[in-house]
């Protein structure tokens, strides 16, 4: 009991270096992608790259890859809860039509007035 066995996984500097270089490359890529007209998919690409970057930070900089299963479960539960917040609220906003037939409050502003799903 008095002898401490140290089993902590130590991430090596070369891994950190590889991660930071990847993160910087992805930052350049997201700026580059923003200048290409992808229509609706600009935001999809931007968020996909951001999520990839965030995943790298969580797994390696924050050691989530090497931490205990219990902590990993907390992280996954947190992301899941965030998904509930975003997905349920946005699907409600996008799909709601009230009893007078008035479309959702999230409908877009255009010169001809509001126009949902455009």
């Amino acid at each position: 009991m008095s002898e401490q066995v140290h089993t902590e996984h130590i991430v090596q500097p070369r891994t950190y270096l590889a991660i930071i270089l990847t993160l910087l490359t992805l930052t350049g890529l997201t700026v580059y992608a923003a200048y290409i007209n992808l229509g609706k998919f600009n935001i999809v690409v931007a968020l996909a790259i951001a999520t990839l970057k965030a995943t790298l930070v969580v797994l390696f900089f924050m050691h989530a890859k090497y931490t205990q299963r219990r902590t990993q479960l907390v992280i996954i539960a947190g992301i899941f809860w965030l998904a509930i917040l975003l997905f349920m609220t946005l699907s409600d906003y996008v799909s709601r039509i009230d009893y007078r037939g008035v479309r959702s409050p999230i409908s877009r502003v255009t010169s001809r007035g509001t126009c949902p799903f455009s």
Partner: protein
Amino acid sequence: MHRTEELYGQFRTLEQQKDSASLGMWIFLVTEVMFFGGIMLAYAINRHTYFHAFAMGSNTLDLKLGGINTVVLLASSFTMAMAVWSSQVGKKPLISVFLTLTIILGFVFFGVKYIEYAQKFHHRLVPGRNFDITYCVNNPSNCEDVKPEELAVERKEIAEAQAADPDLNSHAQLYYSAYFGMTGLHALHMVIGAGLLLWLLRQSFAGRFTPQWNTPVDIVGLYWHFVDIVWIYLFPLLYLIDRHK
């Protein structure tokens, strides 16, 4: 409380002590995810509803300054990770070096943010009664930091956006409210992080951190990386809405 050197009485081993601290920090970070998640949700709804105004507002931001800050913050995450590594392998002087570098990069971020915020005040882009998205286009002499060719593009974009959304000015204020709200809360987290780093640095100079006990470095590291992740999302959401025109 009973304590044997670094080991507090309620824990059996140092490893268990550290795992508990890490778990507690992650639970706190999950509450932070929900906190920023609510703001992101409000942003998403407004961005969808007033897309023209949000795109216009985004294009008035200085992408160069935002890009520099992204690089600075990512670099600070790297130096923070290296500080954690230095403490794990017992390289005591290196801990202080990397903590100092992280603090310096944090302050570079504040400096750039100050320049950006000041620019927005000069350009009348702060929500309130003086807010005017057309100010620079109509008063080029007061916006000398914006290049004439950029102003020409901006004039064209504002005309198009106004044709699509007659109430562009008030909706652009919503964008700038989101901008100041989100970047302001992010900066507040950075200020707290910088304070924590200074606190770590003092203990590091005193040689407190060893391979057996470096929990504060690890925990503050988790916090600093989380703040970095928030910026990873804020950068494309605020600066890159509609750059491809």
